C-alpha cells in the first residue's frame, strides 16, 4: 500500500473526561491495513478508555474517528461492530456451556427455518473459520472444556466471522504459555495477511517486537509518540514512564539464610504429582513452567487453599499440617493468588477492611473491631507500599490493577508472613508498579522472608529469582541457580525436553 493512501483507522483529537480525571486528552492514533499496531502505556495512561471508545462501549467528548476515510460516531457496541471493529477483552465474552461453534455464531445463528438452528452449517463454517486461523479446535467442544488459549482462538474466530476489519486485543498473551503465544501470533499474522488491522495492547514489552509493526505510546491520557518496531525496550519504557529505568530488576544483594520451608512429595489430583523442594530465608525461589504444569496447584496446597492428598510440609524443621488457609496463615505463610480479582480481595470492601481481613481476630476485642487500629494498620501499609488510593476507606474496586495487587500484598505483609507465595505477581500491572513490586519482594527477602515466586513471565523469573524450579506435568523438571539459568534452558525444561 502506498504511504499516501487513507489509513484503515484514523483517530484524531479524541478526548474523554470522567468525573475527576481527564482519561484522554487530544489523542491521535492511526492503523493501516494489515498492520499490528501496539498501544503502549502504563495503567491509567488511557489505553482502556481509547479501546472502549473504539468498541463503542463509551462515548467520546471530542475528536474524530474515521474508518476507511469515513467519519464514524461509534455510539454503541453494535455500531462499532457494523463499522468493522471487533474487540477481544482480557476477560472473554463466551458462554462457557455452549460449544465453540454456538459461541462463534451466537446471535447470528445459521437458520434452517425461523427459530431452528442449522447446526451442520454452523459446524462447517466454524471449522472453516478456525482452520483459517491455523487452529484445530473441535467446533462441538464445549467452551468450558477448552484451554484459555483455545477459548481465545474461538474469540478470534468470532471476530473473523463478523468480517472485522479492525481487531482490538487487550493483553491477549497474559494467560498464555510460550508455545500458545507462538500459535496466537501465527493466527494474528494470518489475519493481517488478509488486510485486517490489529490494535494490540500488552504490558509484555519483550514480545512486542515479535508481533508488532509500530507502537504508539500514551502517557497520562496524552499521545506521546509512535515508533516503528522492533524498538529497544529501555526506549519504550522511558517513553511510557518518562523516566529512565536503568534496570528492570533490583540487584541481588540478598543472602540466603537458613531453611524455612521444606516441601516433601506434595501431590494433589492429576495436576500436582509429587513436588519436593526447600525454601530458605532471604531467597526468592522462582517457579517457571507452562500453563497447567501444576504451579498454581502447588501454591494453593502450600497456602491451604486446597488440601494435599499426599506429602508433607515442614516449617522451620517441624511438620506442619495445612488443612485450611487459617493453618497456613497461623504458620506465617501468605498466598498472593494468581487471580487476584476472584481470590485476592473483596472489591466492594474498603482498602482497610481488606488489609485487616486476615488479622481481624488480632484487631478486635470481644468480637468488636478496633477501627482506629485497623485504620492505622492500613494507613501504615498504604504509605509503606505507596498504594495510590484516596484513603483507607476507599473500596478496592476503585483502584487500578497495580494498586489492587499491592493491597493483596499488604494483607500478608501486615501479618508479617515469613513465607510469601506470589502467583503471577505482576500480571496485568503497568511497568512502574511492576518495578515497585519487584523492589518490594527484594526488600522482603533481604529482611529474611522466603519468597516463592510463580510466574509465566520468563524474563521476570530470570531477573528476580535466586534459584529457579521448572515444573512440567506436576513435577519438578529441573532446578537452576540464577547464574546458570538461561531463557532457553528454562524453556527447554518447561517443555519437558531432556537437557
Amino acid at each position, binding site marked *: 500500500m502506498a504511504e499516501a493512501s487513507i489509513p484503515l483507522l484514523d483517530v484524531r483529537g479524541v478526548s474523554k473526561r*470522567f*468525573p475527576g480525571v481527564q482519561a484522554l486528552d487530544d489523542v491521535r492514533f492511526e492503523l493501516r491495513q494489515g498492520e499490528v499496531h501496539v498501544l503502549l502505556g502504563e495503567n491509567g495512561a488511557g489505553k482502556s478508555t481509547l479501546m472502549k471508545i473504539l468498541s463503542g462501549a*463509551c462515548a467520546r467528548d471530542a475528536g474524530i474517528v474515521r474508518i476507511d476515510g469515513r467519519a464514524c460516531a461509534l455510539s454503541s457496541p453494535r455500531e462499532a461492530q457494523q463499522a468493522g471493529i471487533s474487540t477481544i477483552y482480557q476477560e472473554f465474552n463466551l458462554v462457557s456451556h455452549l460449544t465453540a461453534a454456538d459461541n462463534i455464531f451466537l446471535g447470528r445463528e445459521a437458520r434452517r427455518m425461523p427459530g431452528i438452528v442449522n447446526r451442520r452449517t454452523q459446524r462447517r463454517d466454524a471449522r472453516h473459520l478456525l482452520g483459517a486461523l491455523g487452529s484445530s479446535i473441535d467446533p462441538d467442544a464445549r467452551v468450558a472444556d477448552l484451554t484459555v488459549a483455545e477459548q481465545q482462538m474461538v474469540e478470534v474466530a468470532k471476530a473473523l466471522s463478523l468480517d472485522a476489519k479492525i481487531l482490538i486485543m487487550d493483553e491477549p498473551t497474559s494467560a498464555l504459555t510460550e508455545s500458545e503465544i507462538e500459535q496466537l501470533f501465527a493466527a494474528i499474522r494470518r489475519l493481517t495477511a488478509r488486510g485486517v488491522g490489529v490494535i494490540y495492547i500488552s504490558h509484555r514489552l519483550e514480545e512486542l517486537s515479535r508481533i508488532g509493526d509500530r507502537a504508539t505510546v500514551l502517557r497520562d491520557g496524552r499521545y506521546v509518540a509512535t515508533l516503528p518496531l522492533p524498538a529497544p525496550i529501555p526506549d519504550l519504557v522511558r517513553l511510557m514512564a518518562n523516566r529512565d529505568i536503568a534496570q528492570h530488576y533490583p540487584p541481588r544483594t540478598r543472602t540466603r539464610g537458613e531453611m524455612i520451608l521444606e516441601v516433601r512429595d506434595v501431590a494433589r489430583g492429576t495436576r500436582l504429582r509429587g513436588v519436593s523442594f526447600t525454601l530458605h530465608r532471604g531467597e526468592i525461589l522462582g517457579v517457571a513452567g507452562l500453563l497447567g504444569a501444576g504451579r498454581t496447584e502447588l501454591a494453593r496446597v502450600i*497456602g491451604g*487453599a486446597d488440601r494435599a492428598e499426599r506429602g508433607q510440609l515442614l516449617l522451620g524443621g517441624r511438620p506442619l499440617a495445612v488443612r*485450611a*488457609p*487459617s493453618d*497456613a*496463615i*497461623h504458620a506465617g505463610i501468605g*498466598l498472593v*493468588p494468581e487471580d487476584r480479582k*476472584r*481470590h*485476592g*480481595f*473483596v*472489591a*466492594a*470492601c*474498603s482498602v482497610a*477492611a481488606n488489609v485487616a*481481613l*486476615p488479622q*481481624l*481476630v488480632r484487631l*478486635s476485642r470481644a*468480637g*468488636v*473491631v478496633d*477501627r482506629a487500629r485497623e485504620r492505622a494498620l492500613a494507613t501504615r501499609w498504604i504509605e509503606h507500599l505507596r498504594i495510590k488510593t484516596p484513603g483507607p*476507606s*476507599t*473500596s478496592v*474496586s*476503585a483502584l487500578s490493577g497495580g494498586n489492587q495487587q499491592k493491597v493483596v500484598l499488604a*494483607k500478608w505483609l501486615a501479618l508479617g508472613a515469613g513465607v510469601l507465595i506470589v502467583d503471577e505477581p505482576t500480571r496485568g500491572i503497568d511497568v512502574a508498579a511492576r518495578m515497585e513490586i519487584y523492589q518490594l519482594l527484594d526488600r522482603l527477602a533481604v529482611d529474611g522472608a522466603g519468597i516463592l515466586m510463580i510466574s509465566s513471565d520468563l524474563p521476570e523469573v530470570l531477573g528476580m529469582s535466586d534459584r529457579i524450579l521448572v515444573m512440567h506435568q506436576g513435577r519438578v523438571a529441573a532446578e537452576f541457580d540464577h547464574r546458570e539459568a538461561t531463557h532457553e534452558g528454562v524453556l527447554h525444561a518447561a517443555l519437558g525436553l531432556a537437557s
Partner: protein
Amino acid sequence: MAALRASGRRLGTVVGLVGLCLLLSALTPYFLTVSNLLNVLEQTAINAVIAAGMTFVIISGGIDLSVGSLVALAGVVLALCLQAQAPLVVAIAAACAAGAAFGMLNGLAITWGRLPPFIATLGMMSIARGCALLFTGGRPVSGFDVDFRHVATGRFLRVPAPVFITLAVYLLGRFVLAETRFGRYVYAMGGNEEATRLSGVNVRLHKTMVYAVSGLASAIAAVVLTARLNSAQPIAGIMYELDAIAATVIGGTSLMGGEGGLGGTIVGALIMGVLRNGLNLLGVSSFVQQIVIGLVIVFAVVIDTSLKSRRP
C-alpha cells in the same frame, strides 16, 4: 466512590419515604396524625424485624425463604410453652432458640451440605411449616396471660412496645454489622467468598451464624405477632419472606451480596408500611395495593441498576 454512591442511594430512599408521606398527607387528612403514624410503626414492626435478619443474609450473598415458616414455628413453640405454664422469659427464650436452631440448620445445609441457599431455605420453608402444623395438630393455640400480651399492647409515652423492640433489634443489628468482626465477615463473604476463605476466615461457621441470626429475627417477630393476635397460628407468616426481601431490596441492599445495610432496610420496611397504610386510608382495594407494592419493588431495583451502570 462506592461509599458515596451507597449514601446517595440511602438518601434517595429516605427522600422517597418523605415524598410518599407528603403525598399521602395531601391526599388524606387521616394520614398525618400521631395515632395513625404510630399505627404505621406498629404495623411495620414485624416485617422490619424479619427484614433485619434478611439483610444479614442478603449482604452475605444468600437468601432466606424460610423466615415466614420460622415465624409460625417459633410462635407455636412460644405458645405451647406458655400453655404449659412455663415462665414468660423461658417461653420467649425457647421460641428464640427454636428460630435460631432452625436457622442454623439452614446454614449447615448450605455450608456443609453445599446446597444453594435458595434450595436449602425453600426446603426449610416447608419443613418448618410442617413442624408448626404437626406440633399443634393444625389448630391455633390461644389465650395467654395479660403479662405476655403487653409485649404487643404495652405502650410507653403512647408508643407501642413493638416499636421499641424494632428499635432495639436495629440498633443491635447495626452495631453487629458495623462494629464487630462477624459483621465485617458478613460483608466480606458476600463480596467475595473465596477471597475471604483464603484470608483464613472460617466461612462455614460465619455463614451458618448468618442464617441463625435470620432465624432469631424471625423468632422475635413471632413473639410480637403472637402477643398481638393473642394466638399462635401454625399458618401464620405466609408470604412474610417476600415482604422481608422487598424491604431489604427497596432499602438498597444488593441481592448480589457485599453491599447494603440496616439503615436502608428500615426505610424500605417503612416505605412498605406507609404505602399499605396510605392505600388503606384512601380506600384502595387490597388487590390494587399488591400491584402498587410490586411496582415499587421493581422501581427501586431499576434505580439501583441504573445508578450502578452509570459508573465509568
